[in-house]
């Protein structure tokens, strides 16, 4: 099944999106996602994909064009990063409100300023509450798989929500990996032609995106929340089907060496791969430490988290973003809140690091884990800590 091939992950993301036969693609260049639309335009130019590729004049228009096309019944795709996502911000929440299944590849990059083109998660965190489903890939194979799964999930009649697949800028977008590419007929069998629930066409006129007064706005918001919460069922169903067809298993939280773990590290995105090596090294020394890789950011997998952290004494949450003047990193604050009502919960340490492309090494992980493991229990712990920042 499939075809093994070495390729830059951004190009692989484009190949995966093309396998899904989108009808309309609209994207605007911004580092580091640019190779994705570039390569898609190549695929269209080579005649391998029958799609309209719109070279829009901004990201705002990229998402707007995708919404117009999706509203007219087309399967749509866009990709962006950082400032581009922020330029789309006005339209982000409207996409979920209108229940248009737009699929986006998001090459995560730090928000300016200062200007920086490298990876962290501040872009997606700024758009966390816009009603999009968010998946996080930790390596190239997951990028390919999630890209294809994304269309199935977003377009499912029980979901009908936009979805973003997050892949770390440079750490993933610009790295060459050997990956398994599903064949066209396999993807066709997994992902049927898109049949919209409603679309704008003279044969069945409808009004899309109407005005809601206070009498109905709360109900509309509640309905959207219910839709994204309920999307979990479809996501799990799609992942099950994926495993049956392609043999690769997906879970909201993937566990690595968690058997008997007293300490657990929780990561999102590409740093999970680096953390695995650190866990291997520590396990070899007999340290009872494991790794949890969070793949489903929205809807947040509360049940999976509670299950995964059962028996863990100390949880170390790694964040690639900060909520300025707030509770530290956004992932950690989410997890604190998720575990608050549990009768027994692990002690939690939050590290904020790897910002704006700062390297995250195996040694860093070992140092952070050791710091928690060997800490003087009597000393009061910081609510969160910036790791590896000079001049502190």
């Amino acid at each position, binding site marked *: 099944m499939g075809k093994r091939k070495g390729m830059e992950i951004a190009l692989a993301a484009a190949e995966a999106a093309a396998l899904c036969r989108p009808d*309309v693609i609209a994207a605007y260049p911004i580092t580091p996602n640019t190779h994705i639309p570039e390569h898609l335009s190549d695929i269209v130019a080579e005649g391998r994909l029958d799609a309209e590729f719109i070279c829009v004049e901004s990201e705002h228009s990229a998402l707007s064009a995708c919404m117009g096309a999706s509203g007219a019944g087309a399967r749509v795709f866009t990709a962006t990063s950082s400032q581009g996502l922020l330029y789309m911000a006005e339209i982000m929440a409207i996409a979920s409100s209108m229940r248009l299944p737009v699929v986006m590849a998001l090459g995560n990059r730090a928000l300016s300023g200062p200007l920086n083109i490298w990876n962290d998660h501040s872009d997606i965190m700024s758009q966390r509450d816009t009603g999009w489903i968010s998946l996080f890939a930790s390596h190239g194979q997951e990028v390919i798989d999630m890209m294809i799964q994304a269309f199935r999930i977003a377009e499912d009649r029980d979901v009908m929500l936009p979805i973003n697949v997050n892949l770390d800028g440079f750490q993933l977008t610009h790295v060459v990996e050997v990956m398994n590419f599903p064949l066209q007929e396999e993807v066709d069998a997994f992902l049927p032609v898109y049949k919209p629930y409603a679309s*704008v066409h003279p044969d069945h006129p409808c009004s899309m995106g109407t005005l809601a007064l206070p009498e109905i706005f709360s109900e509309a918001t509640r309905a959207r929340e219910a839709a994204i919460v309920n999307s979990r069922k479809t996501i799990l169903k799609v992942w099950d089907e994926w495993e049956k067809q392609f043999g690769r298993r997906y879970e909201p939280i993937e566990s690595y060496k968690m058997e008997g773990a007293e300490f657990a590290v929780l990561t999102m995105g590409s740093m999970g791969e680096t953390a695995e090596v650190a866990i291997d090294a520590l396990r070899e020394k007999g340290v009872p430490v494991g790794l949890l890789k969070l793949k489903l950011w929205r809807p947040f997998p509360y049940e999976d988290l509670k299950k995964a952290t059962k028996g863990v004494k100390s949880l170390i949450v790694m964040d690639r973003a900060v909520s300025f003047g707030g509770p530290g990193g956004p992932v950690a604050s989410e997890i604190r809140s998720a575990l608050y009502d549990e009768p027994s919960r692990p002690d939690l340490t939050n590290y904020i690091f790897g910002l704006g492309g700062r390297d995250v090494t195996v040694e860093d992980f070992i140092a952070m884990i050791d710091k928690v493991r060997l800490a003087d229990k009597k000393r009061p712990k910081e609510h969160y800590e910036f790791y590896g920042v000079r001049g502190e």
Partner: protein
Amino acid sequence: MNTLKGYPVGLIENFDLYAPKLVDREEYFSPGHRACQGCGEALAIRLMCKALGKDTIIINATGCMEVISSMYPTTAWKLPWIHVAFPNAAAVGSGVEAALKALHRKGRIPDRYVKAVAIGGDGGTVDIGLQALSGAMERGHDLLYVCFDNEAYMNTGIQRSSATPFGASTTTAPAGVASMGNKTWKKNVPEIMVAHNIPYVATACQSYPLDFMNKVRKAREIKGPSYIHCLSVCPTGWRCPSEACIKMGRLAVETGVFPLYEVENGKYKMTVSMPENIRPIQDYIKHQGRFRHLTPEQIKIFQDRTNLEYKKLLNKIEHSKSWGEMSAE
């Protein structure tokens, strides 16, 4: 008001009397919406829809027309209609058009021509939506964009836009002891559209319904980008009686403040013939509260600039040639 006075006699006598009988009786923009009394924009949209016919998709920018026509769970639209946000009607329209093209090619929608038509007010078009409009027109989508220009942000309460005329008092450019109201000249967006080298650009006004509808029909037939800038009288924002809507539009044209012309493949043409001597702008502005404060000196500046702009247009009409003519030379 005898607006026919001084006009050349048409080829068919009483054409204007009989022509309305040829207009589609179907209402695609139905009554019962919440527009103000005497709204020129709602009238213009009703006429536009009649000219476009059933096989049309409307893409609406946020603004008066979206708010008054689509209060959930009601809608005034019998045509398929989509609204996303304020600045992006042209971009959403690009997507609708691209989808129609792709789905038609792939046989997923019925095999017949459907026109995508994006509409917006002056704020959503000439200010915050100008970039998306420029992009859509430059990319050559098969998209008609109609700007309904009521010369200020009327939906949010009469704030000044770059389409607000010289001297008008608005809520963000108010007249006062130290201010004459709006100090700038109206941005010439039809000319910006001409500079995009699109095949059809026109100005129109709801007070000339047949002229407007003819232009909409012409634009509908163009398989490419086209732009119509429709002056839409807003009695609420212009501070004039609601029954003066049609009269104000007529006077805007007759005073040369808003001449009705079209630019087809580069060639300019006046579509509503103008009297040899245009009427003084006083005839137009004296009926409107937004100009009430203007001093004779300020009115003279307004008049002189109007004359100049009108001459500039006449010059283009006299000397412009269509691209076809120029290529053949």
